[in-house]
């Protein structure tokens, strides 16, 4: 996995997991790969993955079963959506606004493009 430079690795891994949950690759109650498995897959320090799991557990996206490892929460999908929405509105949207303001892009043009994008991709 290539990591971007502007965000801590453990958060980027969290994002990756969230994406898999949103894409329904991992359904609720599914077992999440063990810390070691994911660390090997991503070639990162297992402690970093552990931090990611702790973080996701705090957010209620995954939970532990004693002695069995981590599992995707029942309401993980909603939690992830909520978490991502918040993150997007807080971090990514301001960047986006800045860009369209600087480049003088009109909202109506965005609207058209967004509709086209939706029909093309989904």
């Amino acid at each position, binding site marked *: 996995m290539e990591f971007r*430079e502007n965000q*801590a690795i453990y958060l980027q891994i969290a994002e990756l997991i969230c994406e898999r949950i949103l894409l329904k690759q991992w359904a609720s109650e599914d077992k999440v790969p063990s810390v*070691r498995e994911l*660390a*090997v*897959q991503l*070639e990162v*320090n297992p*402690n*970093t993955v552990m931090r990611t799991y702790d973080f996701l557990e705090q957010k209620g996206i995954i939970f532990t079963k004693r002695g069995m490892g981590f599992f995707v929460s029942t309401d993980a999908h909603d939690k992830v959506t909520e978490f991502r929405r918040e993150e997007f509105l807080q971090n990514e949207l301001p960047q986006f606004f800045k860009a369209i303001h600087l480049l003088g892009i009109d909202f109506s043009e965005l609207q058209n493009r967004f509709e086209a994008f939706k029909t093309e991709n989904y």
Partner: protein
Amino acid sequence: MVSIHNLGFGYSKKKPVFEGLNLELQAGNVYGLLGRNGAGKSSLLRNIAGLLTPTSGQCTVNGHTPHLRQPKFLQELFFLPEELHIPPISMKEFVSVYAVFYPNFSQNQLTEYLKEFEVDSSARLTELSLGQKKKALISFALATNTPLLIMDEPTNGLDIPSKSQFRKIIASSITNERVILISTHQVRDLESLIDPIIIMDNREVLLNAGTDVIAEKLSFKTVQQVTNHEKVLYSEHSIRGFGIVIPNEDESYTKVDLELLFNAALEKPQVIKQLFN
């Protein structure tokens, strides 16, 4: 597991390599030791391994005094130097000779690592390429399951796929009972693997901290212009602007850029020391 207090060492009395050095290594971690050429990284590793005797202070590994080199200590250590000693035998013969000395050696692990690294274990070791030799010995080193594993520049001589295999293997072999200490110049190779980071310079340890602690205290950013100069610890010009290191003030965690961190530590050693001690 490794505990160093006030360690002094020098090849001659007038020119100490380090003085009053302190360092604690906890089990369950892959430590990355960074330092410029001649900063004393190899000397430190050799002091920990018992190949050199400290001139002052103490160094203990799991309660053992390394430089006595007693078998009970040596069983708990594997040291992979930068320049390897390769006997003219096959990997199978090598294992038949050396594995018995390590009580926790695992043949299954070795087979797995050799397979992952794609090393031919029936060929003579001396006839393998440098990278293959290195991979064979790294596999053996990991399979000995010694509590302390020291590797000096392990990724030197490895090709790009091997470096990726190396990261996978290290990630899979770290356990809560084990310390892996890697000294390296190739920070890019191991950036997401080594944690905590130890930076040595000018005869002392400037920093020994986990990346979470580092990210809590410092931010690593790329900016178009360097504005608040007095706060910026370090900046360097790159294609995309300036890579800067500044104290973290907005509680957002950026990815720790080891090259920037290392350069910042060399440029402002006192600031870095104060921040992390």
